[in-house]
């Protein structure tokens, strides 16, 4: 007893957790599906970084002389109604989608996680209040809530990020809360409390780190959904506005030409699908690695 308290007191830096299976990450990477997903994402991130260097044309400037040109050597994915090179627009669009996905995930967890951890730790009336508030947000389909928020704030790229974050945080708050509820009963937290650690210290050093990994997993599972929601908002006019080379906007702009100039809408859609597929494959692999029931099934 004495030694265990001693241990948790001295091991502030590395709180005793159920021994992390060293193979968790390895299992994810050994799974060909999630490895392929990870490579796809990394590839797209690299494309996003070097887009301005490798894009053959300006993504915004129009050239009406070549409007709606079919795919050719000069324009591998063709051009749109304003003669803009679709490949260049897609490459630049990678940056936009990546930015939306990262910022949304960040903002939603920055709102949700602290609220969930604090209310889950202190319980009581604030906790009830948070649950009712999340009920309200979750009594509503996420896309439609994001539409309402984006419309109210004026449809811009930044507001899409805010809108999706505001629609997404309740799920993270709930997850953080439920993990916290479990953690606060753990022996190592009890022990830290027993030797006089204050609530602030307990939360910051012992509870929050434990909440982080399930949250990270959940966020990585949601990433594909975030990108799809943002593209959907762009498509129906609640998101980024023309001439921004956002993929959803590009599909929407190509809608009127779909029967003849199929390339205008088709290529941006393939880009979205690939990006989301990367996250979905990675997510599937993570789920396989995390789910002990799937792991032990020896059929």
């Amino acid at each position, binding site marked *: 007893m004495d030694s265990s308290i001693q241990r948790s007191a001295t091991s502030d830096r590395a709180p005793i957790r159920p021994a992390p299976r060293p193979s968790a990450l390895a299992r994810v990477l050994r799974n060909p599906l999630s490895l392929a997903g990870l490579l796809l994402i990394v590839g797209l991130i690299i494309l996003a970084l070097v887009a301005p260097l490798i894009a053959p044309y300006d993504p915004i400037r129009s050239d009406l002389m070549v409007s709606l040109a079919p795919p050719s050597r000069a324009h591998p994915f063709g051009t749109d109604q304003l003669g803009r090179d679709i490949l260049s627009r897609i490459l630049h669009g990678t940056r936009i989608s990546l930015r939306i996905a990262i910022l949304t995930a960040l903002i939603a967890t920055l709102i949700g996680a602290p609220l969930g951890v604090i209310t889950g730790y202190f319980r009581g009336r604030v906790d009830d209040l948070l649950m009712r508030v999340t009920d309200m947000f979750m009594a509503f389909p996420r896309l439609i809530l994001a*539409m309402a928020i984006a*419309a*109210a704030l004026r449809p811009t790229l930044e507001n899409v990020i805010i809108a999706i974050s505001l629609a997404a945080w309740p799920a993270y708050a709930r997850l953080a809360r439920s993990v916290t509820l479990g953690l606060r009963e753990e022996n190592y937290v009890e022990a830290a409390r027993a030797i006089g650690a204050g609530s602030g210290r307990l939360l910051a050093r012992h509870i929050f780190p434990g909440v982080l990994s399930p949250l990270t997993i959940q966020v990585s599972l949601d990433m594909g959904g975030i990108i799809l929601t943002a593209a959907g908002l762009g498509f129906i006019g609640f998101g980024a506005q023309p001439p921004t080379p956002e993929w959803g906007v590009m*599909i929407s702009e190509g809608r009127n030409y779909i029967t003849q100039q199929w390339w205008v*809408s088709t290529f941006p859609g393939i880009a979205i699908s690939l990006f989301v597929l990367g996250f979905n494959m990675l997510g599937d692999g993570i789920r396989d690695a995390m789910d002990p029931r799937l792991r032990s099934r020896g059929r």
Partner: protein
Amino acid sequence: MWAYLVRRLFLAGIAIFGVLVIVFVLSHVIPGDPVVAILGGQAREDVIEEVRRRWGLDRPLYEQFFRFVGRLLRGDLGVSLATNRPVAVDLRAFFPATIELATTAIVIGAGTGLAVGIVSAVAHGKWVDHLVRFLSLIGLSMPVFWLGLVLLLLLYARLGWLPGPGQLDIFVSRPPPVTGLLSVDALLARDFTALANALSHLVLPAIVLGSHALVGIARITRASMLEVLGQDYVKVARAKGLAERTVILRHALKNALLPIITVIGIYYGGLLEGAVLTETVFAWPGLGRYATSAMLSQDFAAIMGVTLLIALIFSLANLIVDLAYGLLNPKIRYE
């Protein structure tokens, strides 16, 4: 059970009230002025003032909200600024198209999803299973609105197998409205030309809308079946010498069904979300399109009305899922 139901209804009521507050506040902080938007920039100052007073838009926000709730309790949803019709009339007009689309979508999605899930669970680890898993990942990754466009391009524009957007071809006259569901009305009127035309228009948007549900249902079916197929009673059933078909459908599927039904219910409520995008692509006159245009044109009354209806449907679907879960699984007791 009843206590649980009352509690849930009470909480759902609070949540929906909260949704109304959120959306009300949101739609009233819109920077643009809806009156100017409706009347046009050239309207005279005094006309704008008059219209604003008539709609009560000159009052403080909380007062507008309580007036809104007061009218709501009397069943008055207000008048849409854009269509100039009572919102309740609008909703009644747009609602059936969405229900028809969503129901067809869930029937297609659940039917196909169940079959695919069972097949890939039975063929666990074989190439069929891997193929299904890969295809379902691709299916989940495609934006529904893009899938709709691509299928329109292929099946309508190129191959001509299916009709284009809309609910009916223009040369087909609408059957007299009874239920509002076009295909049901056509059937009731024994107008088989209209019925065939309506169904052929319905197929593609329903497949597109149901695609994500199909994949989700297939995946949960596979997982749930795999779990059940490893149980002792399935081994016993096999050992008794029962036909594999009987073992799978009678012994395994029946026990695997619980989580599947839950997921089907959740997806049905979630179809409203996909409907917004699918209805835009297929020019489908449903709630999703109504919500989109209301929000884009800052049509207060319409936004509030459609919000309320969607929140009601969504909460109701969730409640039914939870109750069904309890009814199907006697191990669960509601307190």
